[in-house]
């Protein structure tokens, strides 16, 4: 059995869907953040598989940029979570209701 592009795309779709469910249903801010990282990873898999399929390395370059963006996101996101825990004493995102109308 040969592994085709479709196998990689379907794996990426499954990972992306699980990430969406996590980002929209979990209460802990850390888990929501990690679910968004999981969706970024699913997009990375699509970039890499498509680049391999078309024989271009541009997809791999974009994966490197996404890695840089998600590392920056991790630094800022963790700083926000720490500041939030200091203020509210919880990571529950329902407690972030200051700007709720």
């Amino acid at each position: 059995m040969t592994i085709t592009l479709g196998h990689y795309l379907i794996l990426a779709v499954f990972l992306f869907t699980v990430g969406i469910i996590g980002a929209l249903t979990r209460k802990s801010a850390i888990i929501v953040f990690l679910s968004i990282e999981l969706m970024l990873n699913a997009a990375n898999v699509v970039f890499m598989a498509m680049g391999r399929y078309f024989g271009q390395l541009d997809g791999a370059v974009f994966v490197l940029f996404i890695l840089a963006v998600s590392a920056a996101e991790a630094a800022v996101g963790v700083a926000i979570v720490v500041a939030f825990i200091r203020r509210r004493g919880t990571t529950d995102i329902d407690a972030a209701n200051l700007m709720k109308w």
Partner: protein
Amino acid sequence: MMAAVVFFAVAFLAFLGALALVFHRHPMVAGLGMALSTLSIGVLYVLLRVPFLGLFQAIIYAGAVMVIVLYIVMALGQEETGPRVGSVQTGLTYVAAALLLLQFYWAIVRSGAGPFPEGSALPPVTAGGTNYAFGTIQAFGSLLVSHYSVPFEVASLLLVGAMVGAVILSRRSWS
């Protein structure tokens, strides 16, 4: 054949880690599931003939990012919260996720995405006027400093900005 076995094993591990992240109650198990998932995706990059990005994935994601997050979980967040159940938002989320899955599955199966090119069908990559074999770090580096030099500099600016932002956010007087 061997590649197929490795692919299915690694894909299963990646999916298992993602499920552990989203559905396990304990934040530590969730974080370790995410680490398993990112490591497995790094193995997929090796299978896709770009092995050094698999290493980057292991070092940056499963290393740096996951260590920061697991440190926060250990230091601060010990509360165990599972997924929300029974609210309208949860129901809508599952319906939307199922629709998304079906739609993409249908599109991918119908697109007839075939096997990957091998050997002579995989052309060399041209970067900066020179031809390189696909997936070598020479090709990647040449592409990065020739065609993608401006985005590369923007990425470094972004990292500096994020570093300064993280320092400002974690000032003691901010709380």
